[in-house]
């Protein structure tokens, strides 16, 4: 079922960086993830798409152990992750960066301190080095002039860019994006996506849960389609978007306004089901 994925020039040829194997996760009586497996190679941009509630975000949170799977395991950088060990959990979280739908910047700290906090407390960097790193990252996301501002003074797009810089400050091996643009106004989505594209071009390994089909098609190396806790289809973006195989996939894409070319509109957020 898994195709050869070495076509893209960006993808490395050594062992996969992140593997999630046979993940099963229940919330009460609901089966959020039903025997889901995912492989992410170094340098790849993997996009997870699908209706709301289909399990994509849950899978992402299982990767960095914010949620613990009931069954199945995570293999990161070649080693199996023991999620029962707090020490190891923290260690792998340092190697993975996560960007949240609601940004989750720390409102009581300036932008600079938001980015420099984890390097100082977790990596034990001294303050000057951490802040220098933070400044460099702020410049990278185009917000150098906002270093003394507090999050409540920034727009949504600006906050999300700071959140990306905050995650990058830990120098992670892989970046996990959980619907990074779903809470943004249409005008500011573009600025965040272009930062993400820049990261991808630089070779960062990324796993992105998104409704932005255009981004998935143009920047993604591999697209995985979810529905009701299972992967119903996965493949190269060209195949999924241009000559999509499965009927459910086509239906989902249609529902989101994808008509086979670059879509400008924002997708609806209800899971497919009101179409016949």
């Amino acid at each position: 079922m898994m195709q050869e994925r070495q076509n893209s020039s960006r993808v490395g040829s050594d062992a996969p960086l992140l593997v999630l194997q046979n993940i099963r996760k229940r919330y009460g009586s609901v089966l959020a993830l039903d025997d889901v497996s995912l492989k992410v190679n170094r340098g790849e941009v993997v996009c997870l798409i699908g209706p709301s509630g289909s399990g994509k975000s849950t899978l992402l949170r299982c990767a960095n152990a914010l949620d613990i799977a009931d069954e199945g395991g995570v293999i990161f950088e070649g080693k199996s992750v023991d999620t029962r060990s707090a020490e190891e959990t923290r260690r792998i979280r340092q190697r993975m960066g996560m960007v949240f739908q609601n940004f989750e910047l720390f409102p009581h700290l300036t932008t600079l301190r938001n980015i420099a906090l984890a390097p100082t407390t977790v990596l034990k960097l001294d303050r000057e080095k951490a802040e220098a790193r933070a400044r460099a990252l702020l410049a990278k996301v185009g917000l150098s002039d906002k270093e003394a501002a507090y999050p409540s003074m920034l727009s949504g797009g600006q906050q999300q860019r700071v959140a990306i810089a905050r995650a990058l400050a830990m120098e992670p091996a892989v970046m996990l994006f959980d619907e990074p643009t779903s809470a943004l106004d249409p005008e500011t989505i573009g600025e965040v996506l272009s930062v993400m594209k820049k990261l991808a071009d630089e070779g960062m390994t990324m796993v992105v849960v998104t409704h932005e089909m255009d981004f998935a098609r143009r920047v993604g190396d591999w697209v995985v389609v979810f529905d009701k806790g299972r992967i119903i289809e996965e493949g190269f973006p060209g195949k999924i978007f241009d000559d999509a195989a499965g009927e459910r996939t086509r239906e989902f894409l249609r529902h989101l306004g994808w008509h086979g070319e670059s879509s400008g509109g924002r997708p609806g957020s209800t899971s497919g089901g009101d179409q016949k």
Partner: protein
Amino acid sequence: MTISLAPFANNWFFLLKAVWITVVISLSSMLLGFAIGIVVGSLRTYGGKWVDRILGFYVDTMRAIPLLVVLIWIYFAFPLAIGISVNVMTAAIAALGIHLGAYVAETIRAGLTSVRRGQMSAALALGMSRMQAVRTVILPQALIRMLPSLGSLLIFAIKDSAIASVIAVPELLRQTQVVAGKTFRPFELYTGAMLIYFLLCFPVARSVDRLYRRISFLGSS
């Protein structure tokens, strides 16, 4: 009815020292209460069910027993139980602090649980331990959000300091009683004491209000 300001004029230094003692007791008990409250509140929120229950017993006990009784017990009964005598200031500050600490703990607990859960996720995702996350991300926001409640607890600390008068701590109320006894002018003196307490509490309330208005945005998630 004649009103004379003579009792104040003749005893102003005596009363001023008493005001100082009141301030010292209020601040000390607030500090102690704060320290106890932050620890207890955090442990109750993050320490698991049994810790929550045991510390909940302390909190609910302080809510059930009057401060006067706690003070009397600490000054008179506690030394008998452990064999060490306690001086009045220590007893007063300990009683006030322990009693206040329960209320501070509840306020802190409310504050910690009011912070968005995503903040903890974000901190953990960066590789922080839970304790680091609470210390650097959750607790600061909780304190800012609870500033008005904490401010009114400070007012309580100032007012409750007067209860220490029953064990003869030389704070404002006690010394007012002494002067009233000497000069036979209770109206002027007790009214004056009320005014002084008012002048201590009112600015504190106002300042906390103003401070909160200026920094509340730092706590909004």
